[in-house]
């Protein structure tokens, strides 16, 4: 066996590539957010570190690393330190199941296959694994709030937990229509199903599911207009009030990583992933760079949703807590249930 035929080596390469991408992506997403916020408010945003502030994420990272690490007196030390780690670990783990590229032809054989996709693991229950990991991320917020021994932190954590429980229900129900139409839990096959039948967004149950999905995502990622867990006008910054320096940076980075992940997930579930538009399909078919064009479209579509998060954040005010619960239980949940019913009818008629 050749030395490069080891499965561990190839997984390691994929993991390293994805880890580099997610760290850089999150860094530059913060820059995009700050720039976007600047233009929404008729100012420039960061523009000192390099041209267009291109080195700003690097400078921020160095700043967070060099700040003094402080530990408040009455905290529960182990859980206090564990909480940001859980947040960032779940955020990184989420990337393991997302297929970023279709199968790409290789000039040589690897592990008996001549094709490879940039996806660390592809379990049969891909989308469920993704939801299982993301359901763990609530522990980061919860433990941070509880272990801080601070009223505001605890209030933020309690709010966040209640919010996540309410919205995770709608979120997981909203994708059932897609799973029914695709017939698989596997993310790769969900994209392939859209390659054949068109985007799920364009079908009736898919459209309804998308609407519920995107609203629930804002709640799940703790973004405005649903960021009650860190409502700065009421709770200082909520669950991470007591955190500083790099521990805060971990929460911060995890939030942006999660937003990138869910942007890609939205595209995978409802907008056909790396599907190539019909007018380009004949042109690229059979070319070795064909899949890469698809990846380019994939990233562009995901970038639109990343922009949507910024757009909404700087356009809408925060909801009140009772309004948040009303939307979750009285509107989104029934809509998600109707969507499942409609998916059944859709499949029956097809």
């Amino acid at each position, binding site marked *: 066996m050749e030395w490069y035929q080891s499965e561990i080596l190839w997984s390691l390469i994929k993991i390293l590539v994805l880890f580099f991408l997610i760290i850089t992506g999150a860094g530059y997403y913060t820059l995009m957010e700050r720039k976007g916020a600047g233009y929404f408010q008729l100012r420039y945003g960061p523009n000192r570190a390099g041209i267009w502030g291109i080195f700003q994420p690097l400078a921020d990272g160095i700043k967070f690393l060099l700040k003094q690490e402080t530990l408040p007196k009455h905290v529960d030390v182990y859980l206090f330190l564990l909480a940001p780690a859980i947040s960032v670990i779940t955020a990184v783990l989420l990337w393991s199941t997302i297929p970023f590229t279709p199968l790409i032809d290789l000039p040589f054989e690897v592990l008996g296959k001549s094709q490879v996709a940039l996806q660390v693991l592809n379990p049969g229950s891909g989308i469920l694994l993704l939801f299982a990991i993301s359901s763990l991320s609530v*522990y980061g917020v919860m433990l941070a709030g509880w272990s801080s021994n601070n009223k505001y932190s605890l209030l933020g954590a309690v709010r966040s937990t209640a919010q996540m429980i309410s919205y995770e229900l709608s979120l997981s129900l909203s994708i059932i229509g897609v799973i029914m139409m695709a017939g698989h839990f596997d993310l790769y096959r969900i994209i392939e199903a859209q390659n054949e039948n068109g985007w799920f967004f364009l079908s009736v149950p898919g459209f309804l599911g998308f609407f519920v999905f995107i609203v629930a995502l804002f709640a799940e990622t703790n973004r405005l207009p649903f960021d009650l867990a860190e409502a700065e006008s009421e709770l200082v910054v909520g669950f991470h009030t007591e955190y500083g320096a790099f521990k805060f940076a971990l929460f911060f980075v995890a939030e942006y990583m999660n937003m990138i992940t869910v942007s890609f997930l939205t595209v995978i579930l409802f907008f056909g992933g790396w599907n190539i538009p019909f007018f380009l399909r004949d042109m690229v078919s059979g070319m070795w760079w064909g899949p890469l064009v698809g990846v380019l479209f994939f990233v562009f579509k995901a970038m639109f949703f990343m922009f949507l998060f910024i757009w909404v954040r700087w356009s809408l005010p925060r909801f009140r807590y009772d309004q948040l619960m009303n939307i979750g239980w009285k509107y989104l949940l029934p809509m998600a249930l109707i969507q499942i019913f409609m998916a059944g009818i859709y499949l029956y008629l097809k």
Partner: protein
Amino acid sequence: MENIREILFFLFAFVMMGASFGVILHKNPVKSALFLVVFFVSLASLYGVLGAEFLAVLQVLVYVGAIMVLFLFVIMLIAVRDENFENIGANKGKTMVVFLLVLAFTMQFAALASVLSSDDKINTKTEYSKTIDSAQNLTIEGNAEVLSFHLFEKYILPFELISIVLLIGVIGAVVIAKKNRRRLE
């Protein structure tokens, strides 16, 4: 490969043992609940080692992601203090009862284990595919498919009965909560 499987089994089993002791011995209820989370996650990993990835994912999704979050939420809200719990061993009689129960359980478990080990070894390989209809050569593949075939074809009656039991539980909870509210008013 089999070797790695065995090492992983003992690793997760060890973590599970430690975590379950943590659940019953730790004085802080929040940390007890967290030990239970660790227990569930390592149990899911154990399922994963056995090849039942679908079950593993559901274990994490349902128990860790939903049930334990609710548990912790309630514990945090009512804010139980450490002093509410007496020291372990303070009450001799209770300690004795717990000790005897644990001993009885361990003996029973050992008996069960010896019975099982005398037979064939526990099947560590999962059926990834199953022939539904050999005449039409219909097969299903994958964890979720095999599981749902068993649930919705073979064991449909118990499955529906369980869902009715759960429904009864939900209605019961609502009734109990309503009663308390009326008394308060």
